[in-house]
């Protein structure tokens, strides 16, 4: 798997986030982004945990030094240690129930100032949102989780309409409690 400019926002911001936040890195859904996250993890002396249902992809990620969890996140996340998280990418199944479960799991463990990226949160057209042929299931429902997260007062949410295949890359930052003026 080669590098791609599609994940350029994560590539550009990853070091900044990790330089200011403690914890490990995670990814749900191994792909081309895994190389970028692994490089970021290496540069900042962090572990990268990958969650994936494909044995072949897990073996590939193991080969570049990632810690992998093979299986559905509903099962594998239960076995995940309660360790602090600095940054992660959620890009596995695309139905809202699964993404909500995954986001809430990691947001509880996210260090203040840390960031979770969600992919496919801002599809370009209704047709793409309804495209059931997507290999990861109901592909257009991630935007629902984005909308839910946008309502939370303890988070900041921002969605990039470009890069990441132009399907929406949402940044979710957990705010510091002792910062004034965070929300009116």
């Amino acid at each position, binding site marked *: 798997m080669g590098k791609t400019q599609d994940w350029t926002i994560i590539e550009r911001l990853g070091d900044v986030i990790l330089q200011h936040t403690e914890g490990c890195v995670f990814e749900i859904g191994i792909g081309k982004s895994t190389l970028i996250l692994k490089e970021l993890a290496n540069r900042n002396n962090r572990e990268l945990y990958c969650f994936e249902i494909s044995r072949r992809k897990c073996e590939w990620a193991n080969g570049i030094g990632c810690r992998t969890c093979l299986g559905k996140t509903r099962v594998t996340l239960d076995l995940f240690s309660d360790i602090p998280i600095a940054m992660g990418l959620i890009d596995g199944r695309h139905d809202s129930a699964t993404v909500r479960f995954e986001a809430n799991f990691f947001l509880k463990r996210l260090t203040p100032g840390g960031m979770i990226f969600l992919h496919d949160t801002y599809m*370009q057209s209704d047709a793409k949102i309804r495209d059931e042929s997507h290999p990861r299931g109901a592909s257009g429902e991630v935007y629902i989780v984005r909308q839910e997260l946008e309502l939370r007062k303890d988070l900041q949410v921002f969605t990039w309409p470009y890069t990441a295949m132009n399907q929406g890359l949402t940044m979710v930052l957990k705010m510091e409690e002792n910062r*004034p003026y965070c929300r009116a």
Partner: protein
Amino acid sequence: MAKQDWTILNQLGDVILQNVAGDLVEIGLGRSTQIFVKLASNFCRRLYCFDISERKCKWAEEHGATAFLGPSVHMLRFISSKQLALILIDGDHRYETVKQEVDFLLPKLSLGGIMFLHDTAPPLRWARENGRNCGDVYKNRLELETKTDLQVFTWPYTAADCGLTMVMRKDPNRPYWKE
């Protein structure tokens, strides 16, 4: 202030300009101006700079920018560009001034373009000291956060840890902003 402080602007500037049409505006010149000058040159965009320091304006002119000497609220009307892709507001730190700057510039911001505002979330210990030099720009951020046609996101780190806010207009024609 170290150059590293503007690392987010430095990291995102070319990503924004690769995807968005329009020129650049900076209010309040400083080390960030070096980044703006480089971006404008690399992407062949016009850079409009505003400052009350003649020395800073002269430096910006020497580096290819169109510089305006004087209070921004009087000079902004001289911007000839109808589309702006990247803006940094870091001049006068009073709410009323920043509001006038935002109100003038935001309608010109291209879809996908970013308006950065500095000093929007100073640490608590500084806020207790009347915001030090951060003024009350945080009030502008709070006001922008209430607008449903905008995305507003504030970085708590870098930029001297005083808060660097990004403002982007939502595309009304893209689905699922409307709901």
